[in-house]
């Protein structure tokens, strides 16, 4: 069975700097059914693996009122540092949107 990709079932996944040292990723699920599905199938550990950071470094917020799941994590590289690839942090969302959810 082909697994669902996160980006295919939710309204939008966006990422952005939260200052030069943190990246924040907002998953707008759209409705409570999809929200429940994301909360139950997207583990913090999986997000940590996608971005290659330690699970305990990730802050997670499940916001039922908005049908949003939010993750904040230390930036893979400090914003604008020599190895940074994305000054605004906006493209990192694609990596998470393309990752598959467990059945």
């Amino acid at each position, binding site marked *: 069975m082909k697994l669902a990709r996160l980006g295919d079932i939710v309204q939008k996944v966006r990422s952005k700097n939260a200052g030069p040292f943190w990246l924040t990723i907002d998953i707008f699920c759209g409705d409570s059914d999809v929200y429940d599905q994301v909360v139950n199938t997207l583990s913090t550990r999986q997000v940590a693996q996608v971005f290659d950071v330690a699970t305990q470094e990730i802050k997670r917020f499940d916001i039922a009122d908005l049908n949003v799941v939010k993750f904040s994590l230390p930036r893979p590289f*400090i914003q604008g540092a020599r190895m940074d690839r994305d000054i605004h942090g906006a*493209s990192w969302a694609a990596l998470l949107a393309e*990752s598959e959810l467990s059945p």
Partner: protein
Amino acid sequence: MVRVLVPSGALGLNYDAVALQRGIAAKPDIIAIDGGSTDSGPAYLGRGMSKYARSSTKVEWAGLMQARADAGCPLVIGTAGTCGADSAVDWMLDITREIAAEQGRPVKVAVLRSSQHPAEMAQAFTQGRVTPLPNAPDVDAALIESCSNIVALAGAEQITEALNTGADIIIAGRTTDTAIIAALPLQRGCHAGGAWHGAKIGECGALCATNPQSGVILIDFDAEGFTVTPLADGAKATPHTVSAHMLYENSDPFILHEPGGYLDVSKAKYQPLNDTSVRVTGSEWVPSERYTVKLEGARGAGFQTVTMALLRDERYVQNAQIWADDIVGKCSAKVVDRLHLKSDAFSIEIRLLGHSASFGMLETKQITPTEICAMGIVTAKSEGLSQEIAKLLNPYLLHHPLTQEEEVPTFAFLFSPPEMPRGEVFEFTLNHVLQLENPMDAFTLEVHEIG
């Protein structure tokens, strides 16, 4: 009640002129606009310059200076000139002088400066008055002293001091995005949680509403909370658009740290008042025991030269990573040999645009595109050295074969010469706070009568 008119998320992003007129007609107590942030990277703070074009800034600022005169209220800009360093504040003051003369209207301008002396900050660090925030880079006194610019983020207290001068216009150096909006409501005794929360919701202009590009919003602050109203045609605020804005560029959607305390919105209630306005109550302000301000610093990180080649041959496209890794290894050895440099005195990187340039090792998609741009990025201590190394890289980008046996390949170049100097590059160095006895200790205020 205090009425704050926010024309746009930032000066330079433009605003809806019709909506601005509506805002003036609504008789605001103050017009507040943000002038920058760190979001565009370390070069602006490092160089002490603005991101936006002077021409664009001048046209928009002239419109706001006219709006201020029409509304008969103060106008305040925070984080002037993108980074808020003294040189960017002076740039903004210079533009303001020009406009005041052109409009033939004398104005009293208060300038709040936020730049810090690197040597004094290094000393404060040694004394334990500069402490790290989560995920702060490792720093020592020497590194702090090597910053080209350090700014402290002013809060509501310093903006209030500037307002107390009775100035028509306040040009503030680095401030928190919220301070310029929250200051007057706080000074006049509005609900503190509501003041900070409304300021956070309003700091990006109409991003908290539908039709986010329109910019202009009005925020009414009172004893219990605040009401936000977008002013452009078709722009509507809903409890969803307003509460969702707490997520934006914020690592914690419920807590916002500010000088002197933090905002907690976990118990906030969002109610639609009508078709376009949203009323918010229940936000809490929690004062801190110590008064601290956040510091931002940037320092030179070498000089860069960029060069690029296009790979179109299918076998080279398929093996681009192997090809690039081989070039970096061989060229780096040649630099050490020919220039007698240590291997950590320079860096050569090849990013494969169209292949893995966005995510590097984290890229999960393994497909073969039609073509790849190999971008060589050379960083070294001086402009001349970075160009010299880029010239050593040139023959590899032009002719490097995958194997010794094959005929020498030639790759497409876009420019002659191919080396593009980027000048000095910068890096952010501080994610720290500075402890202050008195909020004005790290800031200065001056008043100019101009025009």
